[in-house]
C-alpha cells in the first residue's frame, strides 16, 4: 500500500450541531455543512472519517440531508480528490443511511472502527462488486494487474475502476509511464 493518507475524524455526536438524537433535514444540513468544511480543509487524497457511533437515533430526513447529499456531491466531484468513510457498527441506525444511499444509487465505505475491515453501505452495481473486492484485497494495484486478475481487457477494467473512483469508494492515481503512456493505480481508501 502507498504512504499513509492524510485523514481526519469527525465525530458527529460531539460536533457543534451534534448530539445523540439526530433528526430533521435542518439539523442534517448543519452537520453536512460542518462535514463539508472539514473535507475542504483536507489535502488532496485525504480521507474524512465520519464517526456516527455516538449517535443513538438518526431519522431518514437527517441521514439523507447529512450523508446522502454529502455522498452525492462527493460522487459528482465537488470535493476533488477527497474521500469519505463512515465509521459505524452494523446496527439499526444504518438502515436510514442505507435507504438514503440506495435512493440515490450511491454507496459509502464503512468500517466498524478506524483500521477495521471495510464494508459497504448503500448500493454498488453487481458488476462492480468483484472489481471493488479485488482492489481492496490488493490494497494497491495497477490497471494492468487488475485486468489480468479479473480476466478483463484494459479498457473494460479501467471503466469499472473509474466508476468506483467516481463513487468515492477507491482512490485512483495516475502515473506517467514510459514511453508516453499513462498508468492507473487503484488504492483502497480504508
Amino acid at each position, binding site marked *: 500500500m502507498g504512504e499513509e493518507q492524510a485523514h481526519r475524524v469527525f465525530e458527529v455526536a460531539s460536533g457543534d450541531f451534534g*448530539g445523540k*438524537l439526530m*433528526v*430533521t*433535514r*435542518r*439539523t442534517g444540513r448543519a452537520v453536512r455543512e460542518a462535514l463539508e468544511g472539514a473535507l475542504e480543509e483536507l489535502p488532496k487524497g485525504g480521507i474524512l472519517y465520519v464517526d456516527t457511533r455516538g449517535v*443513538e*437515533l*438518526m*431519522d*431518514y*430526513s437527517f441521514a*439523507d440531508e447529512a450523508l*446522502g*447529499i454529502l455522498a*452525492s456531491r462527493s460522487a459528482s466531484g465537488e470535493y476533488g480528490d477527497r474521500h469519505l468513510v463512515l465509521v459505524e457498527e452494523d446496527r*439499526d*441506525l444504518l*438502515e*436510514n443511511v442505507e*435507504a*438514503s444511499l440506495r*435512493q*440515490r444509487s450511491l454507496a459509502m465505505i464503512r468500517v466498524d472502527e478506524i483500521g477495521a475491515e471495510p464494508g459497504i453501505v448503500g448500493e454498488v452495481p453487481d458488476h462492480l462488486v468483484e472489481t471493488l473486492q479485488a482492489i481492496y484485497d490488493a490494497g494497491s494495484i495497477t490497471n494492468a494487474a487488475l485486468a489480468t486478475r479479473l480476466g478483463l481487457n484494459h479498457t473494460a477494467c479501467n471503466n469499472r475502476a473509474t466508476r468506483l473512483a467516481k463513487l468515492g469508494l477507491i482512490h485512483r492515481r495516475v502515473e506517467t509511464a514510459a514511453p508516453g503512456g499513462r498508468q492507473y493505480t487503484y488504492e483502497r481508501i480504508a
Partner: protein
Amino acid sequence: MKTQLDLNVRSRGAMSGVLTMGSLDPAFDAATRVDGGPVVLDLRAVEFVEPAGLCGLAALLEFLCARCEEVDLALAGRDVPAYLERMDFFRMFGERVRTNADVAALGERRRHNPGTLQELINFHTEEEIPGIIGRISEILENQGYRLRERVAICSTLSEVCANAAEHGVSSFGAYAAVQAYHHIVSGARRRGEEVLIAIADGGVGVRETLSRNPEYAEHTTTDNDALRHALEMGVSATGEIGRGGGLALVAGIAARSGGSLSLRSGTGRVTVYENRKNSRNVPQFPGTFVRVSLPRTPQEKASK
C-alpha cells in the same frame, strides 16, 4: 340558535366511548356547512380519548374557531375533562372555546408526571422538532423503553412532524399527540403494550401538495390515489432525489411491528398494515392527519 355538532362514539364493543378520529367524522362533515353562527360540539358520550381523537379534536376546533363567532364544548363526567387538562388542552384552547367543565377546579390538581408518556404538542416549525424528540426520548428512557424501541417511536414522530412542518403550513401549525399504553388499544384484543402517535395539520393536504409535481398527474385524481402514492418510497412534492423516504420508511416500521399507519387528507384515508393497505372515503379533513400504532409485545420489553 346554536348549531349542534354530533359525534359518532360507539356505545358497544372494544371501542365503546372512545374518541377516535373516526368518531369525529359526523362533526367534520357538519363543520363544512357552518354559517358563522355559534356552534356546540357535544362530547358528552366520550369516556376515553386516544391521541388521534385529541389531534382531530384540536384540528376541528381550530377550523371552527376560525369560522364561528362562538364555540362551545360540552363535556360530561370528570375523567375526560381531567385528561384534557393533563394534556394541556385548556391552556391551548381555554381562551377560545367555552366549556361546561370546571377547568379552574381541575387546574388545582394539575398533573405531575402521570407515570406514562402522554403529551399534546403544538408546533409550527422544523426548528422545534429536535427539542420535542429529545423530551419524548427522555420520558421513554425513564419508562424503561429499550434503545431500539425509542428509535422506532422517535424517528416515526420526527418524520411525521417534519412532514407537517414542511407541507402543513397553516395558522395553527400542527398538533402532535403521543401516548404510551400498558395494554393494546388498537385492533383485536391481545396481550402487550402500545404507543400511539397522532399528528394533524391544517395545510393544503396531500393531493394538493403532490399535484405541484406534474410527474404525479396520474396519481392525484382522487385523495386516496394521492395518499397511496405518497406512501411510496421516493415520492415527494419536489421530486428531488432522496426526498420522500421518511413516510414510507416509518409506515414500514409500524407495519413490521404488527402495528399500522393511517394517512388521512381531504376525503381519503389509507391505512398500511403488515400485509395489506386499505383505502376508504371519509368526510373532508381540512389538512393532513397521520396516526401510527406501534405495539410493544411482551418479549420485546426490556428484561430487567
